């Protein structure tokens, strides 16, 4: 079969398409976005009309994927690690309902927080849900695992979690394709109440989930993704999970590691291999990207012997992503370094693009807030979070999707006046609408600025379900139409923006200000595309 040059994220998408997937459901989030984007432009996906539009958030994505699975077809939901917090309810309960068609949840963790607010490890969620987990070490395994994951899910009739990290998701390598599988045909679950989690049935379903645990453990023991490589030198045994295996092997370019290695790519952890390596070796080094998931479990609570080492013992730093040098150091290898960074080099943090509407919004908001005092602006997750940095220093919070509105509400309840929220259009439809309803319900005095750039900008300009319907949504949720104010954020309208913001800050009720101007990135891109099209027409 042909070899493709794919990002890890794209390899998962291609594997899922070739594995007979009928729908992908996702909300954009770095480092997971490219999975869905790949499906959106893939020829087979378009021919098969695989579902590939964005969902409003990760919870709706997992639920829709579960619905497709109910109908017998193979579905995947994709998200970044914190997205699984949003989707945790359907995710955990899908393990109880079980599946009909294969259901796969792909989660991209972001150790080192390249583009995230924490570095939580999704393997804990997989264990929590008691489902099989796959963790590829390279792009080919990412493809193969996605390809096979639907069958694994259908075999045990429960969802499967695929866990990747930023480095694999955003690194390209050659991937060999397998034969394209047909899609499943429409079918209903054999048991019409399988998906009804009334306590009486939920208890039954939960016992069923518990009863297959030994079978999924056995599957992991036999999995080709869990391998034991013997080594002569038993003074150390190395457990390498997912991508950590590559960093280990980088330190042995001739593939001559003297120590036994246990490579883990499928969970629950393969107990007999673990038993063997721990018994056989004097000391154990656990290499895993993310939290000390394996290390903590095998070390246990009472072991103070120091035999099990890794992130908890300090051989590997407790936070941040792994790399070949960190692993090399833990193996006692010398890190080569010939040059230092010259002292004249300055930091170059990300910034709002030149010409971005958020700049004009913050200029107007900052000027208005001078009259009202500091530390009263709650914000959210998106490009506009960069308003926290100089020269604006305009916002005081960024916690989770939608939290700007609800935090502004709580602060207003506590007596903060005015209490302001700044949220993007896509973040608003992701998780801000219920927050707004809370405000409307109590007519809380908050001013909510929905910075509408008609896209999901931070992740690269995906469509936003809010586009063209923001005012209707706000009025529909109960905001008084005269307090839904639309502005055009441009320097020439600065005075008008300040005036409107001031008016609404003084209003003792819920008001929504919508500064609306297309993202400068997507606007430039669509202009270019338009030009290219016109060029073709001329030809």
């Amino acid at each position, binding site marked *: 079969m042909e070899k493709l*040059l794919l990002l890890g994220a794209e390899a998962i998408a291609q594997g899922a398409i070739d594995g007979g997937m009928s729908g992908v459901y996702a909300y954009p989030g*770095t*480092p997971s*976005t*490219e999975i869905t984007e790949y499906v959106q432009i893939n020829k087979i996906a378009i021919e098969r009309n695989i579902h590939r539009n964005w969902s409003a958030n990760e919870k709706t994505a997992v639920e829709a994927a579960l619905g497709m699975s109910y109908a017998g077809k193979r579905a995947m939901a994709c998200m970044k690690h914190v997205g699984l917090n949003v989707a945790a309810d359907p995710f955990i309960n899908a393990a109880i309902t079980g599946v009909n068609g294969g259901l796969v949840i792909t989660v991209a963790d972001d150790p080192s927080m*390249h*583009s995230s607010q924490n570095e939580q490890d999704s393997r804990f969620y997989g264990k929590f849900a008691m489902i099989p987990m796959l963790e590829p070490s390279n792009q080919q395994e990412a493809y193969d695992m996605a390809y096979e994951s639907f069958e694994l899910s259908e075999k045990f009739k429960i969802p499967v979690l695929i866990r990747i990290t930023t*480095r*694999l998701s*955003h*690194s*390209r*390598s*050659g991937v060999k394709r397998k034969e394209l599988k047909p899609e499943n045909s429409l079918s209903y679950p054999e048991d019409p109440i399988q998906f009804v989690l009334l306590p009486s049935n939920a208890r039954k379903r939960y016992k069923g989930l518990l009863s297959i645990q030994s079978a999924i453990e056995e599957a992991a023991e036999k999995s080709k993704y869990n391998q034991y490589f013997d080594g002569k030198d038993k003074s150390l045994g190395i457990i390498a999970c997912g*991508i950590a295996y*590559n*960093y*280990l*092997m*980088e330190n042995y*370019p001739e593939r001559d590691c003297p120590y036994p290695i246990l490579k883990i790519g499928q969970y629950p952890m393969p107990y007999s291999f673990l038993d063997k390596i721990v018994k056989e070796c004097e000391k154990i080094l656990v290499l895993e990207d993310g939290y000390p998931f394996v290390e903590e479990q095998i070390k246990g609570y009472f072991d103070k012997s120091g035999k099990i080492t890794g992130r908890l013992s300090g051989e590997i730093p407790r936070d941040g992503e792994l*790399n*070949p*040098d960190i692993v*090399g150091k833990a193996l006692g290898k010398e*890190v*080569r*370094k*010939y*040059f*230092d*960074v*010259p002292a*004249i*080099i*300055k*930091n*170059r*943090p*990300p*910034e*709002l*693009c030149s010409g971005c509407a958020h700049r004009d919004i913050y200029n107007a908001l900052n000027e208005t807030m001078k009259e009202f005092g500091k530390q009263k602006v709650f914000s959210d997750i998106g*490009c506009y979070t*960069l308003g926290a940095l100089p020269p604006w220093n305009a916002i005081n919070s960024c916690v989770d999707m939608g939290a700007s509105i609800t935090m502004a509400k709580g602060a207003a309840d506590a007596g903060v006046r005015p209490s302001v929220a700044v949220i993007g259009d896509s973040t608003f439809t992701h998780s801000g609408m219920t927050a707004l309803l809370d405000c409307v319900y109590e007519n809380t005095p908050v001013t909510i600025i929905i910075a509408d750039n008609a896209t999901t900008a*931070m*992740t*690269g300009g995906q469509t936003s379900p809010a586009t063209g319907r923001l005012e209707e949504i706000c009025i529909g949720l109960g905001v008084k139409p005269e307090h839904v104010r639309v502005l055009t954020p441009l320097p020439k309208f600065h005075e008008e923006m300040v005036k409107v913001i001031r008016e609404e800050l003084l209003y003792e009720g819920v008001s929504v200000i919508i500064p609306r101007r297309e993202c400068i990135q997507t606007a430039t891109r669509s202009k270019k595309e338009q030009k*290219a099209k016109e*060029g073709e027409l001329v030809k």
Partner: protein
Amino acid sequence: MKSDIILSGVGGQGIVSIAATIAMAALDNNLNIKQSEVHGMSQRGGAVYSHLRISDKEISSDLIPMGTADIIISVEPMESLRYLPWLKEDGWLVTNSTPFINIPDYPDIKTLHSEIEKFTNHILINADEIARQVKSPRSSNIVMLGAASPFLEIPIENFEQAIKKIFSRKGEKIVELNIEALHAGREFSIAHRKENVSAQLK
């Protein structure tokens, strides 16, 4: 054969397209590739980098270990120095001399250039100027690719092919301009490689 390459620049300067062109040229040459890049927040005008590894053997890590990179290719002079700890002792530093200034405390450009000129193995090229000379002002990143090409063990024809594939969508004229930019960068490097080395030996 192995080539470990660090690409650096500022988000939006097009290092991903340099990486994609080299990767495609390497793929056509039946080599193994791993290319790690930065997406998301840092793309917005911040410092960005890409690790590109090419080898005729299997490649393990997506990231290059410190002190082992064969070459740093940078589209911006200050960014070229940020990744020096990755460069091997006799590695090449190939960088554009035109600064991208979007921070208030950007260092003095002459001091930056002299830091770069400390390296025996350096190419300091005004890629923006050369791109303008070949009447393709947007191709400064392809000029940089050309400037780096003598140090990569990939035939120039493979780079030309890769450019044809990548830019064909934009029309023949754009392909031609970019190939011209590639050669202009390459010629500069070939001429200056010897010069720099002999100057330093004196």
